[in-house]
């Protein structure tokens, strides 16, 4: 019974933890501008993250090595270093976006300017990374993130024409007000929001720290196969709200408050408060994960001790890197840079950098000397994973040109 409870908690945390600032912004913006014509990208992205997370979890459990640790070993120090710099930079952008997201959600309930709240949030994030129980934090923030279900309730309350909604999802087209290029650009943004790399760094490092073994593979699969798709449904609910409420009124999403606007206008103030709790939890949880990822990637590349469970004095440089990353993100956020814009860039660049970390994991998941001869990828998984590798490479190639052509999606 207790085991079942643990599994349930894991799944629920995965659902609530799936959504972060990137998903909030990307799904709301595309819902407002493209209606449901990019919904299929969320589905493609979810399958991708399931494949990626399953392989990383299996590798972590069977050979005790997390993703970034293996990047240097398989790609060599030169490619590994390029990978490290790119991942760290993008991670820092993401961290700035998440901290700003937490500050914004707090400012919406308190009427304090979010800029004043950024340092407070940053300190809290650091404090949790320094000392607090991770299991508890993951559970709390994951479960609170379920408040985002209010978006799904809003869609149901609106009572849309379900047939129309389905056909828009299954027969996508580029709306007249947009070009093929902006369509593709936002498709990449949505994809990057679904397949967040920091999630995988965090997840696989956590699996190693928790001492996952073969026995835990089953639980890993359940969390991943149930949690992530349900999280994707939350994302689609956010997109549907924007499509049904914002799009007809020609309201764009360039502020976080507009993401929650549909809930406020359809369901009232109480529902809005619940939505804001969900947004707060989702972004705070993501800020924690991104902060730790900053430490993981640097420490794992250089071979330093790392880990969030043991006392900080056992992993000193790791904690220094985390603190510096948080400080850097805070300073950048305090320059008043637009949080929504930073979020957009972080998810688009995440999508572009995905092949770098996905590729070594795909190889190692096929290496019997690491995962054992019985646990290498099966043929179906390999075929699927190869298709995704091709997709990731194509996305990576297309990103920068599209960013230039669309001038960052405007």
């Amino acid at each position, binding site marked *: 019974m207790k085991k079942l409870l643990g599994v349930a908690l894991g799944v629920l945390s995965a659902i609530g933890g799936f959504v972060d600032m990137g998903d909030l912004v990307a799904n709301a913006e595309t819902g407002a501008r493209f209606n449901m014509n990019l919904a299929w990208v969320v589905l493609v992205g979810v399958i991708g993250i399931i494949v990626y997370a399953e392989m990383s979890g299996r590798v972590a459990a069977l*050979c*005790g*090595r997390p993703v970034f*640790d293996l990047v*240097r*070993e398989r790609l*060599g*120090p*030169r490619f*590994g*270093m390029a990978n490290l710099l790119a991942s760290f930079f993008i991670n820092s952008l993401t961290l700035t976006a998440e901290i700003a997201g937490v500050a914004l959600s707090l400012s919406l309930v308190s009427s304090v300017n979010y800029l004043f709240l950024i340092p407070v949030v940053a300190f809290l994030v650091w404090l949790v990374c*320094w*000392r*607090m*129980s*991770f*299991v*508890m934090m993951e559970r709390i923030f994951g479960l609170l993130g379920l408040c985002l279900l209010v978006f799904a309730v809003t869609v149901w309350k609106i009572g849309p024409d379900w047939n129309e909604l389905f056909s828009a999802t299954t027969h996508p087209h580029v709306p007249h007000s947009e070009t093929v290029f902006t369509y593709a650009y936002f498709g990449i943004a949505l994809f990057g929001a679904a397949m967040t790399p920091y999630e995988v760094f965090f997840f696989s490092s956590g699996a190693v720290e928790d001492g996952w073994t073969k026995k835990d593979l089953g639980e890993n699969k359940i969390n991943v196969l149930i949690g992530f798709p349900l999280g994707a449904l939350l994302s689609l609910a956010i997109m549907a709200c924007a499509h049904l409420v914002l799009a007809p009124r020609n309201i764009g999403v360039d502020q976080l408050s507009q993401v929650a606007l549909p809930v406020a206008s359809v369901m009232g103030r109480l529902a809005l408060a619940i939505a804001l709790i969900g947004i707060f939890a989702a972004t705070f949880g993501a800020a924690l994960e991104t902060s730790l990822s900053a430490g993981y990637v640097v420490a794992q590349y*250089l*071979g*330093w*001790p*790392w880990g*969030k*469970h*043991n*006392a*900080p*004095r056992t992993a*000193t*440089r790791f*904690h*220094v890197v985390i603190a510096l990353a948080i400080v850097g993100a805070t300073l950048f956020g305090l320059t008043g840079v637009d949080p929504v814009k930073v979020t957009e860039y972080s998810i688009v660049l995440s999508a572009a950098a995905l092949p770098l970390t996905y590729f070594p994991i795909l190889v190692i998941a096929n290496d019997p*000397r*690491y995962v054992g001869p019985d646990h290498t990828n099966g043929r179906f998984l390999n075929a699927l994973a190869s298709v995704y590798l091709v997709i990731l490479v194509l996305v990576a190639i297309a990103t920068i040109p599209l960013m230039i052509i669309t001038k960052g999606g405007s």
Partner: protein
Amino acid sequence: MNVPATPAIAGRVLHATLDLLDRQLRDRNGKLCGNVDDLEITRDESGQMFVTAILCGPGILAYRMGRRRLGRWLEEANRRVHDTPSHHERGERTRIPIELAGEIGPTIEVAVDVDDLASHDMERWTLQHIIGHIPGNSSRAHQ
């Protein structure tokens, strides 16, 4: 003269770049203590070559990636700051004799203590000068 595909003599067969370089090292207590940054090779008079040590520590990787001067400078700087007089022998704390390598797999276990290695010097320094001064540094996260 033919190169045999699989040598007739028994014994562990490895490829240095594939199986040794950039592998994670663990000390005799299982603690992470760096990566294999480089390998020391010795040539003897009869033309035979042996891998004689694992090299790991500040500057070693920089040297390997082409920044020879930077690498040597970092090694020297670390030695001056951290080595005690008894460690004057050049490169003693960045060098792990290969015979101390045990299991060679996803990680390589070496029969040394992490505190004996130069790769741990900055970790200790950071503890003394930064982390050690922040409250709460010595307890595990509350569970």
